[in-house]
């Protein structure tokens, strides 16, 4: 069986700057993989390349055996890729339910007439989505905010809404860009629990960027370390944790004797 997501020899230039060099990635179904590395290493660029924000200069990307390189983001998303952003890409003046409704956009079949005259077909679809939405929001612990504007929610809840929205598109693989950035230790522990729960409930593969070692070590089965656009080490958490090159990249050179 082929991998769920396979990236082969991906290289990308921004003008003359080589941002990513010969990057390879293989994610099996249900696997949780972490991508770590210092600031500016190119982690988010890799996310943007795979999700179609940029088209890589060289290399190939396969999702479920299908080449997705050069496709528009909306097509890639429809093939089963969900994503959250480091700086939260939420619609601040829309309520939480509307966020989930947007995720069901392609399933909304009622047209102008249906929505203007609130036809039975339109009402039925709306209530179906609402039901699904509440189930999902409950899983992420944000169901009590369903009718509130997202901009008014506490920060941790906003992160969870964003993740719920990504999951509402029913992805096979979920990309999380620093899911714990700016979170308190309590929220961090809660986030680990939620990601575990999502992983078990939906059987979704997860690819995440993180800075907090505790979080990465606890969740990931496989970790890649990126420095200046190149992978300097990859392997299971224990291996990465003790890899002198990784420690050097993060903490500076150390005399290991």
């Amino acid at each position, binding site marked *: 069986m082929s991998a769920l997501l396979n990236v082969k020899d991906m290289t990308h230039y921004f003008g003359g700057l080589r941002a990513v060099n010969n990057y390879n990635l293989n994610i099996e179904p249900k696997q949780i993989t972490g991508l770590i590395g210092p600031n500016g290493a190119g982690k988010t660029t890799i996310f943007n390349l795979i*999700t*179609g924000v940029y088209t890589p200069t060289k290399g190939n990307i396969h999702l479920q055996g299908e080449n997705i390189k050069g496709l*528009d*983001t*909306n097509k890639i*998303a*429809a093939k089963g*890729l*969900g*994503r959250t*952003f480091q700086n939260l*890409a*939420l*619609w*601040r*003046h*829309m309520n939480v339910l*509307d966020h989930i*409704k*947007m*995720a069901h*956009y*392609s399933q*909304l079949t009622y*047209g*102008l007439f249906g*929505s*203007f005259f*609130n036809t039975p077909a339109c009402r039925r679809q709306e209530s179906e989505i609402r039901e699904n939405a509440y189930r999902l929001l409950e899983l992420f612990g944000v169901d009590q905010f369903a009718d509130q504007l997202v901009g008014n929610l506490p920060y941790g809840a906003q992160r969870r809404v*964003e993740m719920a*929205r*990504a999951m509402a*598109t029913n992805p096979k693989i979920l990309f999380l860009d620093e899911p714990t950035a700016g979170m308190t230790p309590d929220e961090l522990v809660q986030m680990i629990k939620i990601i575990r729960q999502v992983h078990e409930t939906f059987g979704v593969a997860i690819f995440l960027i993180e800075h907090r070692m505790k979080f990465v070590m606890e969740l990931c089965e496989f970790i890649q370390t990126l420095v200046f656009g190149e992978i300097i080490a990859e392997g299971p958490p224990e291996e990465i944790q003790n890899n002198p090159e990784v420690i050097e990249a993060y903490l500076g050179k150390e005399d290991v004797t």
Partner: protein
Amino acid sequence: MDLLELFQYILQNLINALQRGSFYAVISIGYSMVYGVLMLFNFAHGDIFMVGTYIGFAIATLFLALFSSFLPGWIIFIGTVVITMFLASWIGVFVEVAGYRPLRAAPRASAAITGLMIGIIFETGILIMLGAKRLSFPPLMESVAYKVGGIYFTNVKVMIIIISLLLMLVLHTFIQKTKWGMAMRAMSYDFLAVPLMGVSINIIAPLTFAVGAGLASVAGILYGQAYPILDPYMGVLIGWKAFVAAILGGRGSIKGAAMAGYLLGFIEIFVAIIFPSTLRDLIAYSIVLLILTYRPRGFFGMEHSTKLRL
């Protein structure tokens, strides 16, 4: 002048202001919608209004020649509006696809210049096709004057005001209730996440232009009923004034654009009552400038993390 006469006089001008404001409001909504979705001002919008008026003129003339012997006037009117809206919306789609889409990643200044160029192409195109002769818009309904309580008004004026309000109501429903409207709203808050919902920006963006152009073309038909002279440069001044309304209402805010459109109508009409009419625009837009000095974001402008880049 006693108090009653003064009151009548003000009411009389209020109706005129409402009519003028209706044009500004409906046209400025087109600026705001596009800004909301793509963060750019479509400087060709005034000329899209002009082209829409010409399309309306052609359809109205054709329909009147073909059907006026056996169909009642209001059916011809509705038919003209619907067909014109449909055709004009394709002008909007064309402007997005041919003009702005190749420039999505380019600096905003390139898009602004392109918009102005598209406008010039439209103006010159019409000039070449139809010549410099001024055309007159055929009346789609017989103008009847009424006098109620000392105030004069025509059925045309009332129709213009009512249809404009109706259009805005329909647009509001479209934005709030349909999935396309929902996607437009989402894009105006943050557009990174929209494609991840499986929504194609290459559908939503031209649709936004289409709606704006459709609205402008109806404004054009109504304008043709009030001021029945067409010329290729008719869109320039009214386009800029509607743009001012869009800024005054707050960038990207449809509600703001509509309200500012009416406000602009009121300011213009009432300034002309007090001051000589040659000074009208000078004084009216000085007032607008003053408002913007104290409220640069306009009435309902959202705080954007980025400054306006032109």
